[in-house]
């Protein structure tokens, strides 16, 4: 049903497509990194006109 390699080795960079800019640019917490290996979140707010 699943590929163990996918669970362990998938790497992800989360991207926020919003009109706001995060000027603090803080590195993600370790817990965030773990979640991001399986789930990547994107907000479509501010993408009007892109599609």
């Amino acid at each position, binding site marked *: 049903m*699943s590929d163990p390699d*996918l669970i362990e080795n*998938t790497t992800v960079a989360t991207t926020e497509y919003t009109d706001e800019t995060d000027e603090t640019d803080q590195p993600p917490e370790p817990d965030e990194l773990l*979640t991001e290996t*399986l*789930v990547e979140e994107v*907000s479509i707010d501010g993408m009007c006109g892109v599609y």
Partner: protein
Amino acid sequence: MTAPGAAQTGFDPSGAYRLHRQAELRDEPFGALAYHFGTRRLSFIKAPILVDVVRALGDSVSVDEALQRCAVPEFQRPAILHALAGLAVSQMIEPRA
């Protein structure tokens, strides 16, 4: 088992959850795309087994039971639980009464 990060999210693996009523899943080659019509957020669920678990939540009395029904290997459970906690925070899944 306690999900990493559960303390911050309130996510409880012993509780019943389901796909949020305002969210839908679409199967994709990488797993599934989840879209929440209320928050207008997309989540790329990048592991098919996690997609299976999310779908199984609605028919399971607890998250732990959903993991068992989907035969999630023990070594993968912490990562799956952590991802589910994140999906709870982003409202892709919600507690079920």
